[in-house]
């Protein structure tokens, strides 16, 4: 098998996903183009060598509709012959883009594929793309609920307390702040600039380094009212009849931030790297996507990781560093429980609770984050995993070369 290597990974900084966020005036396609240009320019890449561009984007309506990937390629000034595809595997989209790129390369059908993701959550409202997932028939048949309820249910089922999730959130903030302090992301972050070349944003602006257990304790649960008063908790009874009451532990402070951002990853085979004069940073050892029960929805990080580990012939303890997306604090906590791994190895430079989760881009961002962290610590193997709406999980294992 030809094998797929990661030659480079870049991302934009993440702006707060509201009208006061710094990236709110930047179009989604410009975020994507920023990442695509950053990747090209740093590597002096001849874009005509790119066989395809795969871009994750979740809310594909309005300005993110109509295959934003192809428009992004054109806006970035890539060779017009470079095709592009936009894909949606919800929160796993960015990593799915990387995995599909890797699969195209590893299969030998393609040589160089750029993967990435984009989401301007301040400009395109999450959920505004509708979908069959919202059909009442689904609710009746499956008892599917909004993710926040699922996250609280996951915590309830696995004995994860409010104390636990808040402590995890504080750690995320501290680690992210410390990472920025020592410029841990300097290698990957490409500032967003306007048409005059003036900087719009060059740092993650969602971080709250002064977060404490006390400050989080003041926040009331986000999904309690909705869950108890609007019948959503009751919907989960069909699947989880043993749960008398859901313990609503999540709030804005221990769930992922809503932000704007984009990322791009350069994937290629060994020969192509040589031809283009590039040095591989890591290789993709294994990947897996998997479905799980859709009401709990967020638990598939564990089976996805296990499947990837199995395919790589590895054990959980063989992985040096993990990136487990902090969609809700209970997810990495549950995943750590499930895989039997220590917090020391997980999200060492903070995660989405601190820096935010631009849906379609996060998977690609995390791949770069774990690579930077491995290099900084001179470690070898990393595993990235994300929980996904509809009850799915995705995982990718990389190894530095």
């Amino acid at each position, binding site marked *: 098998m030809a094998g797929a290597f990661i030659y480079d990974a870049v991302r934009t900084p993440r702006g707060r996903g509201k009208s006061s966020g710094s990236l709110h005036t930047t179009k989604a396609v410009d975020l994507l183009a920023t990442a695509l240009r950053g990747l090209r320019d740093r590597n002096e890449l001849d874009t005509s060598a790119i066989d395809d561009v795969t871009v994750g984007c979740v809310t594909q309506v309005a300005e993110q509709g109509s295959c934003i990937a192809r428009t992004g390629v054109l806006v970035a000034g890539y060779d017009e012959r470079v095709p592009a595809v936009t894909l949606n595997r919800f929160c796993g989209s960015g990593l799915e883009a990387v995995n599909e790129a890797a699969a195209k390369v590893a299969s030998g059908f393609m040589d160089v594929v750029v993967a990435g993701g984009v989401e301007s959550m301040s400009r395109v*409202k999450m*959920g*505004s793309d*509708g979908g069959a997932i*919202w*059909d*009442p*028939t689904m*609710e*009746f048949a499956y*008892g599917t*609920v*909004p993710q926040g309820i699922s996250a609280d249910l996951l915590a309830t089922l696995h004995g994860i307390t409010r104390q636990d999730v808040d402590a995890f959130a504080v750690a995320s903030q501290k680690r992210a702040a410390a990472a920025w302090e020592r410029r841990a992301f300097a290698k990957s972050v490409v500032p967003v600039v306007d048409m005059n070349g003036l900087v719009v944003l060059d740092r993650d602006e969602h971080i709250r380094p002064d977060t404490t257990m006390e400050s989080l304790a003041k926040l009331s649960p986000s999904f309690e009212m909705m869950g*108890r008063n*609007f*019948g*959503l908790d*009751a*919907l989960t*009874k*069909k699947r989880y*009849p*043993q*749960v*008398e*009451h859901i313990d609503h532990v999540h709030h804005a402070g221990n769930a992922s931030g809503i932000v704007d951002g984009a990322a791009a990853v350069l994937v290629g085979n060994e020969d192509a790297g040589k031809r283009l004069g590039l040095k591989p940073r890591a290789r993709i050892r294994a990947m897996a996507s998997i479905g799980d029960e859709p009401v709990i929805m967020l638990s598939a990080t564990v089976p996805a990781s296990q499947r990837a580990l199995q395919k790589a012939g590895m054990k959980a303890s063989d992985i040096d560093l993990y990136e487990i997306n902090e969609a809700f604090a209970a997810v990495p906590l549950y995943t750590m429980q499930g895989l039997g791994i220590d917090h020391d190895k997980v999200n060492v430079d903070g995660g989405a609770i601190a820096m935010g989760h631009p849906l379609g881009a996060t998977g690609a961002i995390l791949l770069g984050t774990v690579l930077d962290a491995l290099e900084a610590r001179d470690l070898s193997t990393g595993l990235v995993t994300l929980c996904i709406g509809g009850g799915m999980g995705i995982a990718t294992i990389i190894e530095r070369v």
Partner: protein
Amino acid sequence: MSNGFSAQFDAETGIATLLMQMEGRANKINMAFGEGFAAALDDCLAFEGLKGIIVASGHKDFCVGADLDFVYRSRDAAVFRDQVRQVNALYRKLETAGVPVVAALTGSALGGGYEVALACHHRVALDSPAVQLGLPEVNLGVIPGAGGTQRLPRLIGLQAALEHVAQGKIVRAPQAKKAGLVDDLQPTREAVLEAAAAWIAANPRAKQPWDSKGFRYPGGVQPDTGDARNLFAAGAAMLVKKTAGAYAAPEAAVSAIYEGTLVGLDAGLEVETTYFVNRVVSDQAKDMIRTFWYHKNAVDKQEGLPRADDARVETVAILGAGMMGAGLAFVFAQRGFEVLLKDIGQEALERGLAHCQAQAGKLRHLSTEDRDALLSRITGTLNVEDLADADLVIEAVFENIDLKHEVIRETEAVLSPEAIFASNTSALPIGDLAKASVRPANFIGLHFFSPVEKMPLVEVITAEGTGEETLARALKVMGTIKKTPIVVNDGYGFYTTRFFSAYIMEAAQLVSEGHDPVLIEWAARQAGMVVAPLKVFDEVTLSLAAHGLDMREKYEGKPLDFGAARVVRKMVGLGRTGKAAGKGFYDYAAQPRKLWDGLKDLAEGTPEVTGVDYLADRLMLVQVNEAARCLDEGILRTHRDAEIGAILGVGFSPASGGPLAWIDRRGVRDVVEKLDALAARLGDHYAPPALLRRMAENGERFFEKV
């Protein structure tokens, strides 16, 4: 004139009247309706100089729905779909004929009847609370099938329509106007017709909003938007919270509205048709129609029961001014009876009278005079001599046979020889109580349910000595107070109390066997039970159950020592007597209410098999078995009473159609096998009665399969 439909034309105004006056007392939607309506519509459209059409009824009601015989018998989806499509095509023709069409709602328009009105451009109703409007189809296990789920959201908005259709709401004319179900109210029949004609004259180019360019849904929320998705997500969740997923019809109604409003009206009607047909041919619809239409009507009409032309009851005395006594006093006064409310304590009496006042205050539609008149019919007394004029006495004193005997003797002493004495006991055999009576022929059981103002059922119990005339007079009175009477023979706990005890005691039994109480509660809800067993156990109090056990021991002459009895007695010993005490199976101090942690310590073992399905089966099997036993023992006289009593009295799964329908659906043979297996493991009290065995052997059912 065909099938009672006619078209009349007023050449002067150019207005045609499409008059519906089908044979019999009401207009019912069936094949004959369709043919008659279609012919009359063609006649109307043929009139030279036609300016508009008024759709009116020659009967008291406009039309109160489909001919349920037709719906009940329909099992062939393809045939039924074609019939439904014809109706829809007819209504489309009506609303797109090019002239204004007005529904003259001079009486109630319900279900299919209201759908006729929806297919008109304008609805004028008689301004009377007696005129009812709405789409109550889900209550019979089906959904509106002639455009109701499509036109109503387009007329009053998605959210309002969801509430009306999924809840099967019926509203009175004044509220219907507020809700937008009708456009205009007029004081008299003539005024309704005049207003209809005037509207036609003023709106010569009337069109349905949904057939107009740029149509937008009223109420703000447009389909296929985030707001609409949130609305439907919350609506679906609230529905499931209420029904635990046991009812297919309201779910189908929500889906039909959701999916049908994503597309235009014609496609929407097709979506509705698919869901409608799917419901109509289903077992759940058949079972619900049989019970809530055929059985309920038969019970309310007291079919097959002795009749009295005159109950000869004007004054009713209620003994005991507690919750039940005061409630009864109010209910009788509300229906025009003179009521004497007696208690032995001044304080209790005053509380009872205050309860009546509070209830009267809730009747907003009454004028102050009417309310005062109602309350003036209730007289409180502490003195048994004051009861001399009573024609009917209902005792609602504490459940103690000695006390009741004393009350019976003391009261009968002052009564006229004609007067009926009734006991509201929920369990004590009427024959035993009647031993204290000097005229047992006038003695009867009238078992009401709490809160009596709301609960429609009354269980009428005849003891061996109860006279036929007493029964007839009592039934006449029950009809007057608008209660739904089932009539059963005497025996400890009669029917409903035995049935209900079987349910809650089985839950306690399951606790004793070590099953997870959280699962027990959910299993019951998912099986369609209206209230979870441990929750309702706490409401009726465990002390009452413990008292019942003691009474039963006395009657049966042997100790009752089984898991459930031990759990109940231990709980009572711990002071955990129920909701009123703040602690029972649940802890009421916890927010939200939580099942008590200590229940696991009451477990006497660890179950080999458990889970929602197993627990649901256990809870349902003991109930249906109790119903079968009551039939076998002759406590129950009819099948219909078994169904109506269980559902209206004690909240047995309405979606099932009742305990006997439940057995039919499950299969008698399967039920017998399951009960035998339980009996082998847990004791003879689970064994099925001979009746069920016989039916299993002969492959019989309780109700004819349609």
